[in-house]
C-alpha cells in the first residue's frame, strides 16, 4: 500500500512529490476506481438492463409503427400525431388529469385533516390511526376486489344497500357498468387506499413540532383549536408537500386497481394513460404507439417531479 488513497494524507504526499500537483490530482481522482467499479458493476449492469436500456428504447420505439409481429416501419413523430388525433387517447389524457388531481386532493386532504385532529390527541387516536393506515398496506389488486363488493350492482352491493336503506333506492344501479359513475367509483376506492400515507407522514410532521412552541401558546391562553389553526397546521406543511408529491406520482402510475376494478371500461371511460399504454401495446400489440403514449406519461411525471429531482440532485454530494 504505497499509495494510501486517503483525502487527508494526500496533502503531505503532494509536497513530497513536489512539482506534480496535477498528476496527484488525477491520481486522487481515480485512486479508488477499480474497487469502486467492482462494487458497482452488478448494480450498473442491472440498472442498465432495467432502466437505461428501456428508457432509450422507449424513445426509439415511439418513432416506429409496430403492429404485432409485422415489419416495423419508421414514421418519425407519426405516433404522436396519431395520439393527438385519437379520441380514445384524448379521453385517456382527460381521465388521467381528473383521476390524478382528484385522488391526490382527496387522499392528501383527508389524510391531512385526520392527522391534524390526531395531533390534538395523539395517544387516544393511536388505534384508529393504525386502522386507517392499514388500508394503505393492502395490495392494490386486492383493493379493486374489496371495492367491487361495495359497488356491485345487485342487492349484495353495499352502496346500493345503504342508498335503499336511506330511502334513495331509486338511485341504486350498477355503479361500475355506467360510464358516468365508474370513474368516480375508482377515484373513491383509490383515495380510500391512499389516505394512509399522508396521514402517517403529516402526523409525523406534527409530532416534530417543538413542545416549547406549544407550551408558549398554552401559557398565552391559546385553545387547542387556536393551536391547530395557527401553529400545528402551518408547521405541518413540510409533511403535506412530501405527501402531495408521493401521492401525485402514485396516481400517475396507478394500474393495478384500475385493472381489477374496471379493466379500463366501460367504453374506455376509466382508462388513464398508464392504462391506455398497456391496452394499446399488450392487447392490440401496437408497441410503438403504446411507447409514444408512455413518453407522454413520462413527461407528466417529470413535470410533477422537477422540484424533487432538483432537490435530490442538489442535496446529494
Amino acid at each position, binding site marked *: 500500500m504505497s499509495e494510501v488513497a486517503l483525502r487527508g494524507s494526500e496533502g503531505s504526499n503532494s509536497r513530497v512529490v513536489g512539482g506534480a500537483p496535477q498528476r496527484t490530482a488525477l491520481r486522487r481522482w481515480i485512486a479508488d476506481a477499480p474497487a469502486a467499479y467492482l462494487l458497482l458493476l452488478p448494480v450498473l449492469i442491472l440498472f442498465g438492463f432495467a432502466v437505461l436500456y428501456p428508457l432509450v428504447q422507449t424513445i426509439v420505439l415511439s418513432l416506429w409503427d409496430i403492429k404485432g409481429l409485422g415489419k416495423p416501419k419508421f414514421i418519425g413523430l407519426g405516433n404522436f400525431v396519431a395520439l393527438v388525433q385519437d379520441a380514445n387517447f384524448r379521453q385517456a389524457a382527460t381521465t388521467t388529469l381528473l383521476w390524478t388531481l382528484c385522488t391526490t386532493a382527496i387522499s392528501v386532504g383527508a389524510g391531512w385533516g385526520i392527522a391534524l385532529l390526531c395531533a390534538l390527541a395523539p395517544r387516544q387516536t393511536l388505534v384508529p390511526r393504525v*386502522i386507517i393506515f392499514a388500508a394503505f398496506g393492502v395490495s392494490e389488486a386486492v383493493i379493486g376486489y374489496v371495492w367491487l363488493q361495495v359497488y356491485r350492482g345487485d342487492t349484495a352491493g353495499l352502496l346500493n344497500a345503504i342508498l335503499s336503506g336511506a330511502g334513495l333506492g331509486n338511485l341504486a344501479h350498477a355503479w361500475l357498468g355506467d360510464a358516468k359513475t365508474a370513474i368516480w367509483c375508482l377515484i373513491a376506492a383509490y383515495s380510500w387506499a391512499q389516505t394512509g400515507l399522508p396521514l402517517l407522514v403529516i402526523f409525523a410532521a406534527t409530532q416534530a413540532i417543538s413542545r416549547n412552541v406549544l407550551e408558549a401558546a398554552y401559557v398565552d391562553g391559546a385553545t387547542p383549536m387556536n393551536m391547530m389553526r395557527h401553529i400545528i397546521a402551518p408547521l405541518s406543511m413540510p409533511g403535506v408537500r412530501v405527501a402531495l408529491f408521493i401521492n401525485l406520482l402514485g396516481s400517475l402510475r396507478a394500474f393495478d386497481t384500475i385493472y381489477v376494478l374496471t379493466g379500463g371500461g366501460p367504453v374506455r371511460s376509466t382508462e388513464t394513460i398508464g392504462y391506455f399504454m398497456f391496452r394499446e401495446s399488450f392487447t392490440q400489440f401496437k408497441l410503438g404507439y403504446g411507447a409514444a403514449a408512455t413518453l407522454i406519461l413520462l413527461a407528466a411525471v417529470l413535470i410533477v417531479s422537477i422540484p424533487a429531482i432538483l432537490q435530490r440532485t442538489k442535496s446529494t454530494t
Partner: protein
Amino acid sequence: MIGKSPRWIPYFTWLLAIVWVIPLVGIVVTSIRPESDTILGWWRLDHVELTLRAWFEVWGKYKLAEGFWVTLELAGVATLGTMILTPAAAYAFQFLRFPFRRTLLVIIINAFVLPAQVVVIPLFTLWRQMGLIDNVLAVLIPYVGLSFAWSIYLVKNFLEDFPRELVEASRIDGCGAIRSFLYVVLPNSLSPIFAVGILQFLFCWNSLLIPLLFMRTQLPLPVVFAQISGMYDANWDLRAVAAIVTTSVPLLVFLIFQRQFAGGSVATSGSKE
C-alpha cells in the same frame, strides 16, 4: 398534547376508522359465511352460520398455493438481491472517488420517478428476443434493477451520517477499499439495509404489471388474483379468501414495520424533511 384537547376528537376518529375498515370487514365476513347467506349482502343477519368451507375449497379451485410459493420465491430473491447489492454501491458512492461518480449517482437516484409503464414495452421485446419470457429472470431483473433508484439513495443517506473517521482509520491501518466496506461500514449499517429489504419485499410481493406481462405459467399471487377477480365471476366467498391470502403477508409485514415503511417512503420520495 399540552392543554385539554376536545373530547370529541377520539370519538370522531374512532367512528371514522370504523367506517374506513367496513369494506375490509366485508371481505373477511364474506369468506367465512356460506355464499347462499351473503347473496343479499354480507351484513345480513337473518341466518347466521359460519363456515370455513371456502377456506378449504379455494386451494383446489384456484392456483393459490402455487402462486404463494412463486410470489415468495420472486419477492424473496429480489429482496435479497437488492439487500446485497445496494450497500456496496451506496458505500462506493459515499466513500470512494472514481470518475463519473456524481454523474452516475445523480442518474441512478433520480430514476425513482420512472413509472414501471415506461420500461415494460422495451423489456417485453428484449425478453422475447432473448427467450426469457416466462423465465424468473424476466421479472427479477426489473425488480432488482428498478429498486436501486430508491434503495441506494436510502442507504447513502444513512452513510452520510456515518463517522468518516472510522473509514479513514481503517484505510490507514491498511484496509483496501473493499475490506474497509466489508469490515467497517457493512456491519454498522444493517438497519437501513433491513429497511430497504422490507420495502423491496412489499413492492415485489404486490407487483402486478411486470409479472402479468412477462410470466406465463409461474404466476405470482396478484396476477392469479387479478385473473379471478373479474367483475362477472361468481364465487364471491372463494374470491374473498383469495383476496385475503394475496394480501395477508404484505399487510402483516406492513403493519409490523410501519415506522420503517413511512421513513422509507419519504426517503424514496426524495425529501429529507
